[in-house]
């Protein structure tokens, strides 16, 4: 159970960083909005997948 919490904290930090970096990138280059969003979603999904896998392994 503690492990599940740790995993969620890690995933939260990871996705937060991705989101933040994507915001920075969009602010610098608003014309690349579409491409940045796609890359962001893929990266977020990959991290999320690991998070879910760990959660299911713990529970």
């Amino acid at each position: 159970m503690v492990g599940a919490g740790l995993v969620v904290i890690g995933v939260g930090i990871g996705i937060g960083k991705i989101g933040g970096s994507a915001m920075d990138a969009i602010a610098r280059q608003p014309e690349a909005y579409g491409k940045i969003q796609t890359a962001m979603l893929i990266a977020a999904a990959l991290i999320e997948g690991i998070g879910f896998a760990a959660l299911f392994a713990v529970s």
Partner: protein
Amino acid sequence: MSRTTTLILLKKKSLFLIALLFAGGLFAKENEQNQENLSAKEIQKKEIKEYIMHHLQDSYDFSLFSYTNEAGEHVYFGAPLPIILWDNGLKIFSSSKLHHGETVAEVEGNHYAISHNKIYKTDASGTITYDEEHHATNIAPLDFSITKGVVSIMFTFLLMFFLFKNLADSYAKNGGIASGAGRFFEPIVLYIRDDIAIPNIGEKKYRKYMSFLLTVFFFVWFLNMLGLTPLGINVTGNIAVTLCLALITFLLTNLTGTKDYWLHIFDPLGSTMKWYAKIPLYIILIPIEVLGIFIKPFSLLIRLYANMQAGHIVLMSLIGLMFIFKSWLGSPMSFGLAFAISLIEVLVALLQAYIFTMLSALYFGFASEEHEHHNEMEAH
């Protein structure tokens, strides 16, 4: 000026009053509940948990809701579905014979009963024996039943067939212009082609993967959306379904893999190094690359399954809060939260379909890469 300030003050005051009223209601109810027997609350919690788990599972009948009548009997509202078993010959019977797992069905001298959502062969009284690890030791016949999930998949299949047949036909009829519902789906089809398939797979080879990408996108999307209806369907939250989808991606990736794809796995350094220098590296590199072949589709299947499962659990738990709080504050809060999560789930339904398609396209792109190796040769 002064009028507006008083108005704002009044508003603030009334908001505060409303909040106070709600809070008062909550505390009053809580005190009452504390005086009540605590075990009743525990039983209710367990009941809600079981109800959520039941919702997440596939079932042998399509029941929408059930209640207990005055006589204490469970009354189900829904339709039974056919059960097809292979047990020394085909056995087909209606799931109404099992009465939602409450009774034993007798078919041609054999008896069947449901335990933990699985059909087992039993004796006339329906006894099921368990070993130490609480696994049933009865014989489980091969099960090809048309369950709730299968019905949903068939429905989605028919829906997709007629929708996209219509779209294709309308091009022929109207001279290349979509009509009806096709007008909504045409941009999505084009988006998958122009923004998912072509950038990831490449202009030359994308066509042969398009049929799979489109099918999997709409299949996952429609089933995810069906899961949000009150019908209580949870198909994409079933690991067997996502496993099969990921298996198709796995097979397509590896069966259409080019020479360069396999070279990338078994000889990633190519001609950049002497062969004897590569040996110590490859002891580590090749197992990792080979594992990667399996991990990629595995992450696909886990992601879709876990996302949909988690969404359903959260939604059902929030609705379950209503029965735990039983107060003026609890019900609107539960409803509001469930409504907000439902909206997020609509987004997640589309997002997961998109991610699945996107990553499948990415893997197909790896499988059909060709250029890299030749550039390397020219450089030397």
